[in-house]
Structure formats: structure tokens, C-alpha cells
């Protein structure tokens, strides 16, 4: 049986509650173990000896929460990450998307935008970008700013090029960026139909009907209750037989939506909404 909570765990719950009450950012249903580690990193970087001290800074210092938020969210991403996923989207989703005269696509938890640019490139090559509206949402304003800038480190381009090629890319990857601002600046035209927006999967609701939702490596940070809420949002947002893409180790098997989506590329984690 579980042990009584440690002082740290008690303080952690109070911190998360305080953040919710004051800033309306809801981390209460994030998974405990990784949240705990991230708060420990925040304490170290922000030089706080206890969680209570961190809480005090978050409540009373003007910049405290903005700082903490950078540690609570995990901007680990890359372009065409898991190339097999993008290959499956290209080969098994795009043909269906081509049958619609206009498309709405939601990249939920887009972080610093690498996957948004990847999808835009894929859609362009499939002749779909011009008829698409892409909503790219995240809770972290700094990440969204970085995504809007579209400048990524040059030293990552080698890996991204490799990923792009493995994902079935049809052009030369370097056609999509120029070296500028000390990084790789991606072609602005890719973002013409992209709307970056602040949206919380824990507290906000559905804002549009969509044909395809890509939400990768976000659900793993949520407990089952929040996973169910979010899968519910996606289910409501998706059109009849719409598509859902998840991270390469994410699973809906343990959620109450397991029967509401059917895998069309099981290994690559691409699903399709089951008609009711």
C-alpha cells in the first residue's frame, strides 16, 4: 500500500494548486513522477531550497511563474521526429485528406513548432498546404514565440535532413530554409495558413472542427483522467472518420476512448475516429 506523502509531495501539490488558483494553468492532472523531477530542476535553476520557497516566488515575483513554466513544460522535439510517423501520414492519411476541398489540421501541444513546419512541408509536397488551415496550439507563450519565428539551430539540420529523407520527403530539405539570424530560417510561405494560439488541453475546449489532429508526446505527461478529457476533445473536434496521430510510444489502450479510435498504422500510432 502507498506510503503517507512526503513533505516534498505535500508541497508539490500546494505549488500546483497555487499555480492553478493564481494563473489558471492546470497541472493538477499531470503525471506525478516527471512533474516532480521538473520541479526539482526548477528549484535548482531558480535557486530555491524548498518547493515552498519556489511557490512564494511564483506567487509574489512578477516573473516567477513565467520562469517556472519553462521548466514545467518539456520542449523536446525535432523536425520529422520518428520519420515512420510522417511516412504513414504521407502514405495513409494524405490520400484521404486529398478528397476534401478544404482542410483543418490541429497540432496540439506544438511546443517550439518543429512538427508544425514538418507537417507544412509534407502538406506542401502533397499539394494540400494551400487548402489547409493549421491550428498550432500550446500553453507556453515562449515556445509559441519561438515557433512563430521559425528559426532552428543550424547544427540540427543534418539530423532533420536525415529524418526528412526517411519520412518520404520529395525535395531537397535545404530548399526550405536559409541560413539567417544564426540559424536556419524556414520559408515564410510554409506558415501562411498556420495560426499559432494559446490553448490549454486541461482547461480549454474545442474551437473548431478538424480533419486531422496531431498530438505527439503530450499525452504521456497526463494522467488517465486528463488523457480521457483530451482524447474527448480530439474526438469532438474530429470530423466523421477524422485522423489522430500520437507519439511513437503513446497508447490509448488504457483510456476510455480505446474503442472510439481504430488504429490504421498501429506501430506509427495513426488512428481514425470510429463512426458512432
Amino acid at each position: 500500500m502507498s506510503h503517507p506523502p512526503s513533505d516534498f509531495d505535500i508541497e508539490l501539490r500546494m505549488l500546483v494548486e497555487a499555480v492553478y488558483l493564481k494563473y489558471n494553468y492546470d497541472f493538477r492532472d499531470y503525471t506525478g513522477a516527471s512533474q516532480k523531477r521538473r520541479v526539482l530542476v526548477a528549484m535548482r535553476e531558480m535557486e530555491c531550497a524548498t518547493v515552498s520557497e519556489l511557490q512564494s516566488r511564483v506567487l509574489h515575483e512578477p516573473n516567477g511563474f513565467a520562469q517556472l513554466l519553462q521548466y514545467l513544460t518539456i520542449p523536446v522535439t525535432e523536425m520529422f521526429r520518428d520519420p515512420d510517423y510522417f511516412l504513414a501520414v504521407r502514405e495513409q492519411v494524405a490520400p484521404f485528406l486529398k478528397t476534401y476541398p478544404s482542410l483543418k489540421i490541429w497540432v496540439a501541444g506544438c511546443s517550439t513548432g518543429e512538427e508544425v513546419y514538418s507537417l507544412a512541408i509534407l502538406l506542401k509536397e502533397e499539394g494540400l498546404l494551400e487548402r489547409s488551415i493549421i491550428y498550432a496550439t500550446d500553453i507556453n507563450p515562449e515556445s509559441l514565440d519561438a515557433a512563430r519565428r521559425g528559426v532552428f539551430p543550424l547544427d540540427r539540420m543534418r539530423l532533420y535532413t536525415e529524418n526528412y529523407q526517411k519520412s518520404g520527403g520529395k525535395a531537397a530539405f535545404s530548399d526550405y530554409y536559409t541560413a539567417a539570424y544564426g540559424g536556419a530560417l524556414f520559408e515564410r510561405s510554409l506558415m501562411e495558413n498556420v495560426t499559432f494560439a494559446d490553448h490549454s488541453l486541461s482547461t480549454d475546449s474545442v474551437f473548431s472542427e478538424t480533419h486531422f489532429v496531431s498530438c505527439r508526446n503530450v499525452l504521456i505527461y497526463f494522467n488517465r483522467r486528463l488523457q480521457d478529457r483530451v482524447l474527448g476533445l480530439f474526438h469532438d473536434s474530429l470530423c466523421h472518420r477524422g485522423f489522430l496521430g500520437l507519439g511513437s510510444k503513446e497508447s490509448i489502450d488504457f483510456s476510455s476512448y480505446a474503442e472510439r479510435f481504430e488504429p490504421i498504422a498501429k506501430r506509427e500510432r495513426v488512428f481514425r475516429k470510429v463512426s458512432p
Partner: protein
Amino acid sequence: MSAVQTAQQQLRTALGSRRIEMVVIGGSAGGVDALVGLLPALPAGFAPAVTCILHVPPDRDSRLAELFATRTALPVREAQDKEPIQPGTVYFAGSGYHLSVEQDRSFSLSCEPPVQFARPAIDILMESAADVYGPALAGILLTGANFDGAEGMCRIRERGGLTIVQDPEEAQASAMPAEAIRRCAPHLVLPLPAIRSVLPLLETP
């Protein structure tokens, strides 16, 4: 008394009144071979859950669960995100993601940066499991060429769990077990055959 009997006696003493519900086994270089020596020793009906974590290349799908399914009397599978932990089941950490244990005794995955260059990191799994299981956790650290696992073994000890480290003299790679011994003074330091012989005893009658 034979070496095996001595080891078993030491284990009973170290175990004391603990009732083990989870065994975490970590390893790196040489770890697959070591597990080939260990896991077949788990008897059918063994009650605790067993979670194995080896450092595997991040971009390759780990086939470890498949590999061991035919060599083990217990069901073997890769641990899935949010999967409730079942007793008597052997789980493997998949590649590319950290694996943690949550308070409700389920697994969770995460993409935080590598720890000691490793993802999955043994430290992360052991620390989170120690927080949940306390004295009901046994940690076994095997061969490896880096320092992952030492921190995790320390946490297991702190929370009252049982700690066993492979004898570095006999391990294929000694750095990992040696670091854990230096830092956490484990309950038992044993060569692989002795660990194999005490494994079934972790289930208290």
C-alpha cells in the same frame, strides 16, 4: 556451506520483514547476457512484478520483451504508458523514453533529456519506484560501463528497499556496479550465479 547457500542466507538476513512487491533490474553494457542468466530463474507464479531496464539505442525499437518471452516462465512485455502494473509480470523499458512508476502503481513514459547520457535512465525508474514502493522494492544493478543507476540505488536504500549489486570483479563491465557500491553501500554484492540463486527468494512465503 556452499557459496550459493551463503548468498541465500545473506539474502534472508537482509530481507528481514520486507515483503517485496516490485523488483527493478538495471544494466547496460553486457546487460542482455546477464539477464539471459537471470530471468529464467524466476519461477512460474512468482508474485512480485519485475521491471527490467537496459540501455538500448534510442532509435531502434527494443525487441527485448520478445527476446525474453520464450526464456521466462512469467508473462513478459514492454511497459506501456499508463499501464497498471500487474504482479507476476516481467516488464521491459522500451527505447527512447524514460520509464517511471506512478503513485497509483502504473507506468508512465516521458521524453525529458537523457540522464547520464541514457534514455531510458535506470536512475529515473529506480527513484520513482522507490518513492512508490518504499521497503517493498528490491533493486538489482548489473554490469554496465557508465554511472547510471547509482543514484537510483541510493534512493531505494533511503526509502527502505533492498539493494543488490553485481560483483564488479565478475561483471562484463565494472563501472556501473562499482559506482553504485561506492555510493550506496548495497545490502548485497554478489556474482551473477549467486544473484540467480537468490532471485526466487525475493518472494516471501
